[in-house]
């Protein structure tokens, strides 16, 4: 997605009081998918007459301020008219306070809008977010635009701003937006979530159920098989001189093939047998324990009619049965302990 290239320019600074000077260091923006998802969700929930919606971005800043990580976002109500814009600042402040209560480590880093356009209102809002006091000053505020126009690609851009102004009274609603590079980054933990979400991408109803471990394994294996197929088809067509050969591609494939470990068959055999036994023993024991637990509860709650008595058994008898269940489970213990030995 980041096919643009960027040139870091020191942004021009406005007149500031002596003391903490704002940084001019290059800035890199990292966006977590949660934030984008929040923005997209907000965009869907906008009022009918609204063309774009805005909200606050929260995240963390690296110590030297050169990297901003956008972690979450919340919506802020606003309305735009011909000549004025109203942003619910009271709402923004309250929501920020609520959010910081639950995420004490996150700070205000900027704001987003769901249209690519930058206009006077953008500058006005940008100046609020980057201002002193409630804003991000002395750090630059990040402005993220995510275009959500129907029928077009989603386009994300990140900007920071520098004050410009022809006259003093126009300074509040003008700003020079400087594009900065951004990167979409997701962690290991997000991966399984994104995988499941991506499963639904080709479904007509845009929904999917959560797959079990074995199902996702099956899918992964199928994918690998199809990739191997593709590569071998390519190699065959090169051998048949139907496709132009590429040294680089050949080298790459050779490197990949060289990754296969060279192990003695006997070693493999031994390791395999050791491991498979461990795995199966643990599985067997876990199931034994489960069965015994199940048995004990069934015995404890079963409506037994002993002999011709017919009456529901008194507590004493119930106790005996529970005791029996208990013994069963104790029987499971020594065997369970053996698991440890097998693993050790």
């Amino acid at each position, binding site marked *: 997605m980041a096919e643009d290239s960027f040139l870091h320019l020191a942004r021009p600074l406005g007149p500031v009081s002596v003391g903490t000077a704002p940084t001019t260091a290059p800035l890199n923006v990292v966006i977590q998918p949660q934030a984008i998802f929040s923005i997209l969700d907000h965009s869907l929930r906008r009022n009918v007459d609204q063309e774009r919606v805005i909200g606050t971005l929260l995240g963390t800043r690296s110590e030297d301020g050169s990297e901003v990580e956008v972690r979450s976002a919340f919506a802020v*109500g606003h309305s735009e008219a011909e000549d004025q814009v109203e942003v619910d600042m009271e*709402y923004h402040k309250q929501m920020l306070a609520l959010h910081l209560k639950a995420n004490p480590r996150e700070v205000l880093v900027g704001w987003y809008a769901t249209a690519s356009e930058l206009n006077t209102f953008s500058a006005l809002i940008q100046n609020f977010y980057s201002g002193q006091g409630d804003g991000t000053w002395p750090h630059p505020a990040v402005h993220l635009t995510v275009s959500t126009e129907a029928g077009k690609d989603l386009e994300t851009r990140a900007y920071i701003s520098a004050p410009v102004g022809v006259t003093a009274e126009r300074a509040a609603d003008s700003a020079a937006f400087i594009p900065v590079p951004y990167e979409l980054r997701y962690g290991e933990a997000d991966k399984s979530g994104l995988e499941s979400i991506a499963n639904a991408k080709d479904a007509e109803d845009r929904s999917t159920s959560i797959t079990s*471990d074995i199902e996702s*394994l099956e899918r992964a294996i199928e994918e690998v098989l199809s990739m191997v197929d593709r590569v071998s088809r390519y190699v065959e067509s090169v051998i048949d001189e139907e496709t132009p050969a590429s040294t680089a591609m050949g080298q790459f494939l050779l*490197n990949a093939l060289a990754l296969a470990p060279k192990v003695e068959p006997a070693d493999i055999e031994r390791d395999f047998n050791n491991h498979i036994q461990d795995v199966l023993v643990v599985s067997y024991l876990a199931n034994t324990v489960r069965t015994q637990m199940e048995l004990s509860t069934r015995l404890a709650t079963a409506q037994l009619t002993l002999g011709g008595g017919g009456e529901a058994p008194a507590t004493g008898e119930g106790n005996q049965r529970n005791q029996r269940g208990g013994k069963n489970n104790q029987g499971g213990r020594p065997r369970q302990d053996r698991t440890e030995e097998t693993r050790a």
Partner: protein
Amino acid sequence: MNGPFHTNPPSPPVSTLTTVQLLQSLTMAEIPAPLAAVQVEALVVMKIIKHCSQTFPSTATGAIVGMDVDGTLEITNSFPFPVVEVPAESHFDNAAPNPAAAAPRAKANAAYSAEMIRMLREVNTDANSVGWYTSANMGNFVNMNVIENQFYYQSQLNERTVALVHDVSRSAQGSLSLRAFRLSPKFMAAFKENKFTSEDLQKANLRHPDIFEELPVKLHNSHLITSFIHQLQSPTSTASTELPASLAALESSPFSKNSTLTPNLDNLSLSIDPFLEKNCDLLLDSIETHNTEVNNYQYYQRVLGREQQKINAWKQKRAQENATRATLNQPLLPEDEWQRLFKLPAEPSRLDSMLNTLQVDQYARQVDSFVSSSTGKMFAIKGNLLPNETSN
């Protein structure tokens, strides 16, 4: 139901439809269909993952909001509960060891979530509380905290609420684990009156699988997210690809960086031991707990037996005494005085052992599902490294 409308040709079909829908919604309001499924938006999935993995390995909890549409609970947004940080120096004896686990039913958080929901309503988010979520580590979510939280939600706030459980460690080693639970009506009734003696359990036929009802979870993407995911996966450039000039060019090309989201090829990695070891530890812990419970119960039975013996001895003595008194024509002594003299011990609650049983069940199933995929992987690897063996 719509019979009368068909006999009325002048009425336009649109209005017929709305009337029928109205009627249906009216009847729905009277007898709401039981919750059958849970549909989670991609946004919620990501937010929960973020929150849970941030606080891992300690528990994270939060609220979920959404809407109940004809028995399907649509969860469209979520927010975390603030955690009251207890300073390390101050040691309260009765403070919960993990404040986050008890957060959903804490008073301060009720105010917090009410406030948050009010704020969310202003930006057109579905502003109904439909439950809460918690993180889990290796399926260890069956505990009193979860039960009490869900009981609080189902009894105090809204009957139609669910608990979403996101298992961080299982998601890290395989596919996403997100499950939705509710307390069964049977268990709710028992928990309300705290009836957990073996007699009560027997009468209600309440067993450990009856504690929770699991609802099927579906993920749902909005149109925008669908197109975002599509864009994320395939490079946007449509220019025909040319063969790379060198190895370096190939490695720096966008294709080598492009990571596919689904299927997750990390699933193929073969690491068995850490997972099984952790699971065995947990299982052993549970069995330990079970033993303690059994010992408690046996102690109770011994005490009960002793008391019963004493009572019987007393009864016999009194009967003999009365017999002699009868022969001597003296007034008989009352025979039920033992109820005053002896006190039977109270039976310990069976709830803990029930939960523990469910937990063991959980672990065992987890091992099962893990073993099924890892044995497959192991045989595949063996087959690959020893191709001669498999052909035999």
